[in-house]
Each structure stands twice: as structure tokens, then as C-alpha cells.
């Protein structure tokens, strides 16, 4: 059991790569991230910056043998992630930490009824007979504001709309009363109207049951609306983190700033947007030093070394990985 106050997920400067021909995709280049009990924490970043890898790593769902951890540490519910035997891991998945995926179209087995899939997961972790599990599934569905839960239980996934499926997945995630739910872009595939419903639902349930949520999104606005704290990732590194309001209203890392400035939201119609030049670095040969250096318009000599994520100013809630925000323009010890 997790000691009170101990983070459910605690990654420190985690580095991870996928070996490929002639090298490795350095997917994570220093992820420092933690989620405390009952918190709603967001991770934002552009496509390919390692958000899903981080999420998958938290449940160790990455292809076995297909990746290497090259640095840092990773703990979940107080245990060293790498040391947990696979048996225990399956007991943790779904029970202690549950996950919701991006594509509700494909995240459910198309040839099994919703009920069967839910019941299977429920009975995996709870000592319930089939009927009791079904009852639980029913009540979970009705808590998801689904008006005909019986009907949904007996339906196949393809017979439901995307929003409905995502609600089923959320119900499944809540089914075993986990301490943490990792939601990897749960609404990206949905329309804004449906997205709003799903997000509201997720938040309401989480608050109601004191479940922590790690919400992954590429949409700054979504994260800003929902999360207490936020992590901004770039090229596999957490480059800024802090309370949402601080990060959004006074971003410190040049990347976060540029990202916020690049959104048309808030820009004058028709005006030239402040685009970030270039594109994401190739993760097989990431730039040495600061990962954002090549695209940064304020890069300078010190950027040839990679800055660590460190506090900008006390009380050390707002952190950034940029030499400019660090006290002396020198790498921290």
C-alpha cells in the first residue's frame, strides 16, 4: 500500500530508448513527473514528444524487450517500477492504476460484448461472481450518465458511438476503484461537444472518489481547464512544470512561450502567427545540449549543454529546464 502523501507515480529524470537499426529512438530524455493522491495532473506536448510512452511506462505496457531504460528512476505506488515482477504488475494494472486510451474506436475488443469485457476486468481483480460483477458494471455505467446501461452491456462496441465507448472505457477504468487513472488523450478523437461531456464526467468521478488522474493531452486549453498541475514535454523531456495557472499565464521556458503564442486562439484574425521555426528533432540523433536549441530564438552558448528541470524560484513549484530561467546561467550542480 502506498503511504499517505507518497506519490502514485514518481518518475525522476527518466530516460528511455527504443533500439532500432544503427541506434535508438531516444523517446524519453529526462521525464521528471509525479502524481500525488487525488491530484489531477496534466501532461501536454506535441505529437511524438513521448507522452504516450510515459503513460505506457507507468503501467509497463511497452513491448517487452523492445525498450531500454538508460537513466533516471521510475516508481509507482511506492515501488521501483523495474523491480516489480510481472505477476504483481498484472495485479496493479486496472486495480491500482487504470488507463484510458485515445481511440475509443479500437480500444474495445470488437468481437466481445461490452458487458463481457467489463465483467472480465472486474472479476480479475475482485472476488465477485458473474452476476455481482454484472451488477457492478451496470451501476458503473449508469453513473456514467448512460441512460440504458442494460442495453449497452449487451451491445458490441461498434454499435456504440465514440462518446459512448469512451464512457464505457472510463467506467471500466473506475471499476476496480483504482488510486490513479491515466487518461492518454481521452478526447482527441471526439467532437468538442462530446469532449466536454467526457471531460466533465472524468473530473466529476475523480473528485467524487478521490482518484488521481494523469491527463495527457496535446491541447493546452483542455489541460488548463482541468488540471491542478501541468507538465510540458518536448522531445521526450519535461521542460516545464508547475501549477497550471503559473505555467499558462507566465510560461518560463521559451518552448512553452512559443507554443502558447503559436495558437491562433487569442491572435488577431489574419495576423501572422508566431510560428516556431523548423520541426521536432529526430529522436535518433537528438541535438546535444538543450533539445529545443535548434528552434529556439533565444538560444545562446550555454545551451550546448542540456539543462535539467529545476526550480525557477522558491517555493519551487514552478520548474523549467532552460539556462535562462536558472539562477546563474550555469548548469546546476
Amino acid at each position: 500500500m502506498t503511504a499517505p502523501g507518497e506519490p502514485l507515480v514518481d518518475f525522476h529524470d527518466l530516460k528511455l530508448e527504443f533500439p532500432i537499426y544503427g541506434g535508438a529512438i531516444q523517446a524519453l530524455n529526462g521525464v521528471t513527473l509525479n502524481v500525488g493522491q487525488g491530484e489531477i495532473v496534466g501532461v501536454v506536448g506535441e505529437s511524438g514528444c513521448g507522452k504516450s510512452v510515459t503513460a505506457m511506462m507507468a503501467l509497463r505496457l511497452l513491448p517487452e524487450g523492445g525498450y531500454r531504460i538508460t537513466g533516471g528512476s521510475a516508481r509507482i505506488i511506492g515501488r521501483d517500477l523495474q523491480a516489480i515482477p510481472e505477476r504483481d504488475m498484472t495485479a496493479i494494472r486496472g486495480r491500482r492504476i487504470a488507463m484510458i486510451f485515445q481511440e475509443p474506436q479500437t480500444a474495445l475488443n470488437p468481437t466481445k460484448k461490452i458487458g463481457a469485457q467489463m465483467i472480465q476486468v472486474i472479476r480479475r481483480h475482485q472476488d465477485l461472481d458473474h452476476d455481482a460483477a454484472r451488477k457492478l458494471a451496470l451501476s458503473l455505467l449508469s453513473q456514467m450518465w448512460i441512460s440504458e446501461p442494460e442495453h449497452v452491456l449487451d451491445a458490441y462496441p461498434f454499435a456504440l458511438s465514440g462518446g459512448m465507448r469512451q464512457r464505457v472505457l472510463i467506467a471500466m477504468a473506475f471499476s476496480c476503484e483504482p488510486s490513479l487513472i491515466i487518461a492518454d488523450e481521452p478526447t482527441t478523437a471526439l467532437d468538442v461537444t462530446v469532449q466536454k461531456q467526457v471531460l466533465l464526467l472524468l473530473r466529476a468521478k475523480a473528485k467524487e472518489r478521490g482518484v488521481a488522474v494523469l491527463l495527457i493531452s496535446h491541447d493546452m486549453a483542455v489541460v488548463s481547464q482541468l488540471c491542478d498541475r501541468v507538465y510540458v514535454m518536448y522531445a521526450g523531456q519535461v521542460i516545464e512544470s508547475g501549477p497550471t495557472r503559473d505555467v499558462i499565464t507566465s510560461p518560463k521556458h521559451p518552448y512553452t512561450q512559443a507554443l502558447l503564442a503559436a495558437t491562433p486562439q487569442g491572435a488577431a484574425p489574419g495576423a501572422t502567427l508566431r510560428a516556431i521555426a523548423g520541426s521536432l528533432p529526430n529522436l535518433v540523433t537528438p541535438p546535444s545540449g538543450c533539445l529545443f536549441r535548434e528552434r529556439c530564438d533565444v538560444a545562446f552558448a550555454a545551451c550546448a549543454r542540456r539543462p535539467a528541470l529545476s526550480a525557477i524560484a522558491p517555493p519551487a513549484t514552478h520548474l523549467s529546464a532552460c539556462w535562462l530561467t536558472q539562477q546563474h546561467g550555469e548548469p546546476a550542480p
Partner: protein
Amino acid sequence: MTFSDDPTARPPTPDEADAPDVALSLREIEVCFPLGQDWRGRPKGYVHAVNGVTVDVLRGETLGIVGESGCGKSTLAQALVGLVPLSGGTLKGPATHADARRMQMIFQDPQSSLDPRMRVWRIITEPLSAQRRMSKDELRERAGQLAQSVGLRPEHLDRFAHEFSGGQRQRIAIARALAPDPEVIILDEPTSALDVSVQAQILNLLLQVQRERGLTYVFISHDVSVIHHVAKRVAVMYLGQIVELGSSEAVLAAPRHPYTRALLDAVPRMMRPLESDAPIDASELPSNRILPSGCFFLGRCPFATKGCHEAQTLRPDEGTGEVLVRCHRAQDLPPLVFPPADLPGDAPAHNSTQKLAQD
């Protein structure tokens, strides 16, 4: 510019396409797809994707189209360029005649819209070589010019599409669309597949070439802020119909149609806490197999009353008259106003960094 190269075409009547500033005139456009086949080869039913769209696209403007997934935006776009046949209505205007150069399209997915086995210069000049014979040198030269105008370098011309990032690929697609010197470009979610940082580059580029060439855009997106940024006028679509049409300032700041209101209300806004006061409504876009008889939005509308069982027409909003709304109660609804922007347009200045960078 003349409107009709086609001698058999009926001379345009003044009230329709003849107005000199109209690039495209859509009248009651309908598109249905046959669904399945019974044993005699007759369709079992129809998907009513577009159900009577009437709008004029003015020369040089950007008409934005928003709406939720499946409401028929892409189908409309494809109908405009002739990729799917119209089941009803007429499409007129200088850009609609046999000469395919007049209207070009840019697709959402820059990956699949470029042939993976063609070199970039071939891709860019494909519309030209399809029109008439041109020597390889001529084509390459044209490709070079076009590439430059979208920010590609000459050495890129001999590569294949998969060697580029998403943003670069979209640049190639834009260059290709520009090749035949079109008047109108239909953009079907051109930046949806791109990251925010790259989206900005592409939006800038699109606006820049529009200015340079006086292009007319029909810009489809589900992202209200993108539409707000690029389009002067916006059409909101629902179930294959336009439910609200007007200047984007007016429509996006103070939506009148209940659907537009719901849509805009749901758009995530920076640092605006998610409101959960409105009752959670689980309904989604109704099936377009069998169209509802009255107002299409009836089933989901929180303001529905008796009159809503009748089919609605697109009528000028009584207040200002410049916005068209497909709702007879538009005036009766409580006002809903969104501030133009939630955050200052520019990110906070980063003065200290500027200084340091110059060291």
C-alpha cells in the same frame, strides 16, 4: 474574367453567379451516398451527407466552415471539386467549369495526399502535366518556383514525400495546389493533422499566398479558433445543412443558433474552468440515413418548442440582418457572448531572455 467557357451552359442570371465578386455560387447542394445493394443491385438506403447547402463564396474571401464530425464538411468539399457527384442543387461560378485548374483542393492528411512513389517535383507539377504536355525541364523549373514560394528548398525536389515532416508535406501539397494558378482553393482541415507549432507555419503560409495571389479559400475546420483566425465569414454546418452563416466576428462572438451555441460553449478555452452547470446531455449527431422531418437539431435542442417540428429555413437574423440563421427562435434565446480572446494575443514578453540571447 468570363464566367462560362462552356457554350452550352445556360447564361448566368444576374442574381446568381453573375455578380462580379462571386467566385462560387452554391444553390441547394445535396449529396447522397447509396448504401449497400440488395440482390437486384438497388441501393438499400442512402446516406444523406449534404442536405441543401446554399451559399455564395466571394472572390478573394475565406469562407470558413465548421461543424462536428460527420456533418458533411468533407463531402461538401469533395462535391465542390467534383470528386463526388451532386445529387441535387447547382454549383456555379467561374471556378466550376471544365477547366480543373480553377479550383484546387488541399486534404487533411498530408501523408496520404502525396503519392509515396513520386518525387516531389513530379508531385508538385502533376496538375500541370495532366493539363498539357510540358517538357521535363519546364516542369522542373515550375516546380522550383513553386517550391520556393511555399518555403521548400530546391534540393528537396528530388526526394520522396516520406522523407519530410508533416508540415513540409503540407507545404508540398500547397505548392501542388498552387501549380495550375487556381482561383479557388478548398482546404479540408489542412492543419488538423499538424502540431500547434507547425500549424502556425502553415496558417501563415496559407494567408500569405492568399494575399499574394488573391485566392479564394473555402476553409474547413472543426477548430473554431483556426476558423476565427483565417475566415472573414463562417458557415456552421449541422447534419448536412448550414445552420448559421455570417461574419465570423458576429457568429463566433455571439452565436444565435442553438447548435452554434452548444458548439462554441464546448470549445475548450484557455484557463476557463470547465463549467458543469448545463445538464450533461449524452446525445450525439443523429443518423443521416433517415433525416429528421422538422428542425434537424430538434432532438438535441434545449430550447425546442412547438414550431420546431417544421422544417427550418436559413433566414436573416432579425437583429442585425447580416447573419443568416436556420432557427425561428434565434431572437428569443438568451444572449450568449464570448469574449474575442481569453488571453492576450502575445505571450508575455521574455525581456531578460532577449537580452541574454544577444550576448
